[in-house]
């Protein structure tokens, strides 16, 4: 086996040194009643070429092909990723390294993550960003737990129903074994979180709002922040489409205390939803309450700039049960890739790309309206929006699928009151021709 270098001769030599008579003998300390009987049940080992064939067979089982235009976002977005990023991210010095515990031989990872932290903080308008959390869902859960730590006398948190339903599920899961209570805040007729009854829920430690929200609507975060801060709660904002902040106010400008979200949109492939990237940032004052790794700048013995993991007294391996989180491995290379993507776009490119995404959706909304469809919410949206069709859309949708377009996502599973609505997403990968094709089918 090409991954196992030992020859029989070497094994014999090493066994002699160890003082064991066989490989089996190395396991003499394991009690017989703990042993596996027989061989593990697995398919026969495949050569590299059999594996290629096997995976080709699996690809062939996918009805959705790479040729399909998937007009579905809902937290995972199709953006173009330049080959330069894939080339860089595959460099083995990055890819096959561990968490940078020995900074002197991991300055590449450390500087790259420091840069990721900085670009993230700038994108979100915050003071500090961490080295990443698993994904958007876990980041939100960690943000709310952080809010509970900061506001430690309060036991309730508020979560907008505009937040990605899966992320809300993760929050429920994370908190289910605790004493904390979750209050879900409704969405109004404008598609934005209705904070009218915020005061009725008693003292909330933190309130989280996603913008653009799951239904694509850009929330009025500034106003929400004022209302939330008035109650003494920590104001958390989340996101699944950070590209929006190339065009709309960033959460920091809107007064957010903690910002978290899913960063897959920044240069990662969709890959059936993972690995994603939990982005996480906060105001300076809350740094020591943050979960996760942090890379900081320092100097070496010669006074030269260098980078290290720092503030680890917050973390599990030092603080154990009193840690700010149990997270250890995070999404290292994904954060690096997001950094590469942000660097490749640049400020100018990010803005241009954000505007292009925004414009595609505006065009499609306008055209669908002309074709008789209802754009459910009047509020501004980013690159996603909710549509209600005048007549049954399922047949049309199937037809469009056969023509290579996945036309929107049914949201009734998550929002029963919107069971006849479809969430569409149009990034830069969707062309006017694609949009026109959908509109044309709708017009029939």
């Amino acid at each position: 086996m090409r991954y196992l270098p030992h020859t029989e001769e070497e094994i014999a030599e090493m066994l002699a040194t160890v003082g064991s008579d066989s490989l089996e003998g190395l396991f003499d300390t394991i009690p017989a009643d703990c042993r596996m009987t027989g061989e593990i049940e697995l398919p026969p080992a495949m050569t590299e070429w059999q594996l290629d064939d096997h995976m080709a067979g699996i690809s062939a089982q996918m009805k959705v092909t790479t040729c399909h235009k998937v007009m579905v976002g809902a937290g995972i977005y199709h953006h173009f990723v330049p080959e330069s990023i894939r080339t860089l991210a595959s460099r083995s010095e990055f890819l096959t390294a561990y968490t940078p515990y020995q900074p002197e031989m991991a300055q590449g990872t450390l500087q790259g993550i420091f840069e990721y932290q900085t670009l993230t903080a700038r994108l979100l308008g915050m003071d500090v960003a961490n080295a990443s959390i698993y994904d958007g869902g876990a980041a939100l859960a960690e943000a709310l737990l952080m809010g509970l730590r900061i506001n430690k006398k309060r036991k309730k948190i508020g979560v907008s129903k505009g937040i990605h339903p899966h992320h809300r599920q993760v929050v429920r899961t994370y908190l289910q074994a605790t004493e904390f209570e979750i209050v879900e805040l409704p969405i109004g007729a404008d598609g934005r979180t209705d904070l009218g009854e915020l005061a009725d829920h008693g003292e909330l430690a933190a309130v989280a709002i996603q913008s653009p929200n799951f239904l694509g609507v850009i929330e009025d975060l500034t106003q929400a922040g004022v209302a939330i801060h008035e109650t003494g709660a920590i104001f958390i904002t989340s996101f699944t489409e950070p590209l929006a902040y190339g065009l709309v106010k960033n959460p920091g400008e809107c007064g957010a205390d903690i910002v978290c979200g899913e960063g897959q949109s920044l240069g990662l492939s969709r890959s059936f939803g993972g690995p994603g990237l939990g982005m996480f940032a906060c105001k300076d004052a809350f740094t020591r309450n943050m979960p996760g790794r942090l890379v900081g700048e320092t100097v070496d013995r010669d006074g030269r700039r260098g980078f290290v993991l720092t503030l680890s007294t917050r973390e599990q391996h030092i603080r154990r049960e009193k840690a700010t989180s149990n997270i250890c491995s995070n999404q290292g290379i994904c954060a690096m890739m997001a950094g590469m993507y942000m660097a490749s776009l640049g400020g100018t490119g990010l803005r241009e790309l954000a505007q292009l995404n925004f414009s595609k959706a505006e065009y499609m909304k306008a055209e669908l309206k002309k074709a008789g469809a209802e754009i459910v919410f009047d509020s501004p949206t980013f690159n996603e929006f909710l549509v209600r069709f005048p007549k049954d859309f399922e047949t049309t949708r199937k037809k469009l699928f056969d023509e290579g377009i996945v036309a929107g996502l049914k949201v009734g599973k998550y929002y029963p009151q919107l069971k006849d609505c479809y969430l569409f997403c149009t990034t830069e990968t969707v062309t006017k021709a694609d949009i026109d094709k959908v509109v044309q089918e709708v017009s029939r």
Partner: protein
Amino acid sequence: MNEPLLWEKGKKGRKGMSIPAADVPLATPEAALAGAGPDFPDLSEIDVIRHYTRLSQWNFGVDTGLYPLGSCTMKYNPKTNEKQAATPAIAAAHPMLDDEYVQGTLRIMYELQQYLINITGMAAATLQPSAGAQGELTGMLIFDAYHKSKGSKRNKILIPDTAHGTNPASAALCGYKPVPVASNAEGMLDVETVKALMDEETAGIMVTNPNTLGLFEENIRAVAEIVHAKGGLVYGDGANMNAIMGIVDLSKCGVDVMHLNLHKTFSTPHGGGGPGAGPVCVVEKLARFLPIPHVKKDGDTYRLDWDNPDSIGRVHGYHGNYGVLVKAYSYILSMGAANLKKASQLAVLNANYIKERLKGALHLPYDRPCMHECVFSDEKQHELKVATLDIAKRLIDYGYHPPTVYFPLVVHGAIMIEPTETECKEDIDQFIDTILLILQEAKENPQLLYDAPVMAKRKRLDETLAARKPCLCG
């Protein structure tokens, strides 16, 4: 040559990637919402390529050399696995589409679950957890759900002093107060100690087996019986599974819930800190508590099952770190049963070989047959005023990644070496010879060790300064 920070480079107006021309009228959001966009540097493609190429040259990975980081299983990451995870149809799969459109990606999940079950001896699995620590949390939530289903809420958990560092933090998230269990003179869980601590307030025990001393917990069955007798559950931290594939059946050991670290045992690259993947396997009686959705097979069709009222819910927005799952799946298919077992045997052989060859020169606190790793201490070097850290930093000068240091905490000045099975004898011999050379240097010229590293990109970095005056953002 130093590489500046990204924002110390670039010029406004450069581009590092293509942006399509607008084929629709450009629109802008209303003024009240509009922002100015972030202050990012503008770079050309070559700027970006050179920046990260140079950064990569300041890094050390498994492909660069021996990386014997104890407890991390830094084995070789096969290149074909990367290719498989990048299969276009898989890399482009959207996680919110109907099952019928994504049978291929569901199939991989189903089969991988089955393989992990077969490897561990457990009955059911979830692939959602993103890393070992999230697997532990998932496990603790299953403990909690199980006890709730029995009408009780327990508030303590036993954690041996030889367990992984994440364990207490994970348990705390479920409101469990960790109760430390001291290991005995052989570095093992002691049956009597467990018996004395286990009660009906205690949810169970989290055992790392093999433990962080690299030793197989020989009393695991007896311990499990005690815990089970008090209505508790046994959690197995599978981070060290690389020692026992095809050799141990965890369900026979009495383990009820366990996680696996795919980025350790199943050879997915660690990416300088992730992504990992921490699937959780459980015995039959706990299957109903696993996260949703859970992939099932009906005839030839795969589907996501969302209907499970007992489930703890979701721990990931979609299906976990899917790309990582594909790599582990590829690895398992490439290896097959015999090679997985052989991998464990050779990993254990390599560790024992290092233990035997170094135990004269380094203090070996627990001198018994080890599993996949061996733990020394710097006790013999105390009189030379040389500490573990000095030895570790000097290894860098010789082109090696140091072992894990100062862990586990039960060994003062620990040096924890895990070679893995993908290292050949001559490379291990060379590593051993280097350690012996360094220990000789420690006697003859300890300054070489204090000054180390001198061959790396940076000399020793001031971690105290970094923590005292944090600069986290440029």
